[in-house]
């Protein structure tokens, strides 16, 4: 077997897995900091209890996020050494800065936060919570600066056989960063909200009188946060799509299963993709809707995959330039569908929790339990689009995936590492999720004082 294909699978697997946990960290860190702020300002014990209760789920999640993140830091050198040589001058800097600005902040203050409840003043402890939230947000910013270069290279020159940075400001000002970063951050906010709502819904259905207030407040906070996150992530995603239609039209054409240039371009709501024959044999289309979504008018032309590929061939030479369309198309529908559903559910959640009618809405509460996974589904689909839609490039227009691989590793090496990671990650995921469920469904008054 080909080490390139194996390494792609391994990278996809470890990254997607890592990114199950990262948005939860992003969102819950912020959520906990908000809860603790309320506690410090109001002095009401229930908010401290809530911070600690949800903190346990946060920490279990955080631990898996951290350890799977270590793999990511070294993955570029392990499997993609030619990429590292070609891109080190540009890609290494944001990664090192992420370590300096974000990882230390996050990791130092998480220790302070866990162990410092009795050792620090209330305000100092609260500051630690905010430092953790700040650290995880900064971390996502810097990694997206690095990723954005791969999507849309800026501020560089090709010299000495590699990409060299010429303008750090351009890296930071890369428009791709300023769509991607808010998109990721607000998706994290939504994830946090939906997870808390999921567990709170479970408790409210149990209907233990002594806990109902606790989970009603939690639900209300989470619903508010989730609605804000879901609406923002949707809006930003829309504008990001418009930006991508110009900067990476191939990616957007793949997302929409848009094979041939149309003016105005129609939007394929749902259909069957035939990658072989470059067509969609069955589909439901809305005329001119894609032009409207991407360009705010009903007349603009949007190029199709076939025409875009011809352009790429003219520019870069013969080759296959069409990304996996079926995957992008269905990922796009999953992402947008989940996103719309999230807005609807979070809207209802806000409405009913603020009117204090939650307990009567048992069906809704039942729906909210599995819906805790909705944002994660959307996020995974989103990353599949972002990363596979760049095919065949690892760095858009500069380096192809097949040229990025470590020449020193054999298929046997990668099979070894992939199987090892797969086994380890599966076991950890299983244990981690079981622990989260155990703590998330435990009685808040009973857990107090147990091992954090």
């Amino acid at each position, binding site marked *: 077997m080909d080490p390139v294909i194996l390494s792609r699978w391994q990278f996809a697997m470890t990254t997607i897995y890592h990114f199950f946990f990262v948005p939860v960290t992003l969102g819950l860190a912020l959520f906990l900091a908000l809860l603790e702020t309320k506690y410090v300002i109001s002095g009401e014990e229930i908010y401290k209890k809530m911070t600690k209760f949800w903190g346990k789920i946060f920490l279990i999640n955080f631990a898996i996020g951290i350890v799977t993140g270590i793999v990511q830091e070294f993955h570029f050198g392990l499997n993609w050494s030619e990429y590292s040589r070609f891109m080190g*001058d540009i890609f290494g800097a944001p990664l090192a800065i992420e370590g300096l600005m974000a990882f230390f902040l996050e990791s130092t203050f998480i220790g302070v936060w866990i162990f410092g409840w009795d050792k620090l003043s209330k305000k100092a402890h609260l500051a630690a919570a905010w430092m953790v939230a700040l650290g995880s947000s900064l971390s996502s910013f810097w990694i997206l600066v690095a990723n954005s270069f791969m999507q849309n290279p800026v501020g560089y020159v090709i010299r000495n056989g590699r990409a060299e*940075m010429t303008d750090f400001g351009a890296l930071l000002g890369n428009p791709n960063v300023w769509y991607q970063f808010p998109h990721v951050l607000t998706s994290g906010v939504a994830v946090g909200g939906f997870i808390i709502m999921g567990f709170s819904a479970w408790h409210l259905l149990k209907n233990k009188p002594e806990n109902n207030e606790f989970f009603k407040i939690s639900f209300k906070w989470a619903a508010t946060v989730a609605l804000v996150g879901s609406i923002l992530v949707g809006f930003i995603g829309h504008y990001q799509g418009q930006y991508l239609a110009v900067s990476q039209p191939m990616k957007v054409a793949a997302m929409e299963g848009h094979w041939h240039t149309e003016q105005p371009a129609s939007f394929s709501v749902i259909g069957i993709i035939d990658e072989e024959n470059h067509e969609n044999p069955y589909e439901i289309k809305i005329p001119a809707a894609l032009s409207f979504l991407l360009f705010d008018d009903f007349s603009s032309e949007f190029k199709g995959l076939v025409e875009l590929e011809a352009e790429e061939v003219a520019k870069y030479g013969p080759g296959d330039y069409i990304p996996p369309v079926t995957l992008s198309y269905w990922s796009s529908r999953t992402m947008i569908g989940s996103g719309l559903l999230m807005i609807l559910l979070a809207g209802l959640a806000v409405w009913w929790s603020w009117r204090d009618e939650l307990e009567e809405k048992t069906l809704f509460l039942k729906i909210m339990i599995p819906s805790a996974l909705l944002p994660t589904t959307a996020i995974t689909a989103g990353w599949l689009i972002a990363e596979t839609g760049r095919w065949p490039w690892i760095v858009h227009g500069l380096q192809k995936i097949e040229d990025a691989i470590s020449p020193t590793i054999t298929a046997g090496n990668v099979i070894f590492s992939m199987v090892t990671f797969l086994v380890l990650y599966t076991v*950890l995921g299983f244990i981690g999720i079981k622990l989260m469920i155990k703590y998330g469904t435990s009685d808040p008054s009973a857990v107090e004082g147990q091992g954090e």
Partner: protein
Amino acid sequence: MDLNILWFILLTVLFSGFFFLEGFDYGVGILLPFVAKEDNERRAIINTIGPVWDANEVWMILAGGAMFAAFPHMYATLFSGFYVALVIMLCGLIIRGVAFEFRSKRDDPAWRSRWDMAIFIGSLVPALLWGITIANLMRGVDIAADFNYYGGLLPLLNPYALFGGLVFLSLFITHGASFLGIKLVGELKDRVKKLTGKIWVVSVILTVAFLIWTYLATDILNNPGFDGLIPALLAAVSLLAYGWFLRQGKEGLTFVSGGLVIILATVMVFTGLFPRLMISTLNPANTLTIYNASSSPYTLKIISIVAAIFLPMILAYQGWTYWIFRKRISTDSSDLHY
């Protein structure tokens, strides 16, 4: 002094910091099954590093990130060439990291003892593999003209490197033992102390033998113009001082000398390498140096500015956490979070 030299020094600092801080974390993890008998004792031992291990590990992450940013060819050669060893190390770090968090989350003794084993293995394996890696850096590996090392795992497990692995392992355990000496109280501490003397004797023997072997087999101690001899001798003196302070019952000074051993040993490795990063045993022309393996001057300038701002801040707030958690840990469960 140019920025390439500055980043070589910073890499030395980051690896020193990493081995100093993670060194005692690894040591504590390895000692865990040998010094603790009851659950509360095990928890006490884990809680000595509880608030700090995560931030300590970031030193390794940052050392890797800095290597990527400043010397991308070293990052590429090292991690792709030492692939299998590093994958195993990562697995060790993964199980260790979650073990701290998961271990006390259930009361089941079997559950807890499994995670204790994970902490032990997850500390032992990375400690040993880092030692093997560093010894291979000192000795050099078969780096080809395209800067790649194609040899695979087996040549890395040569006798010198394996012995080097044991030496680093013993130093980390020594360091961890003295850390427990300043963090524990009572009977548990006394038990650690008794063991520390024996560990110290072993690491003295191993270290002296390794220095002689290093002198004979590598040019780290007699690298023309710039050698690691002085830091090597100072490291040896610190290791002897460790034994002296241990006998005197001076726990703080024992820990300080153990830490100095680690830092000086790291400095020895890097000064002995200078200006090389990875030695090629095939052809000196293939050796990675701070010039042919580095990023562009512009990138070095950017990361230098960022490091100049943030490293002092990191040292300040991380140092502050050691101050907050300076209190010794007893086996009384009110002290224990993990």
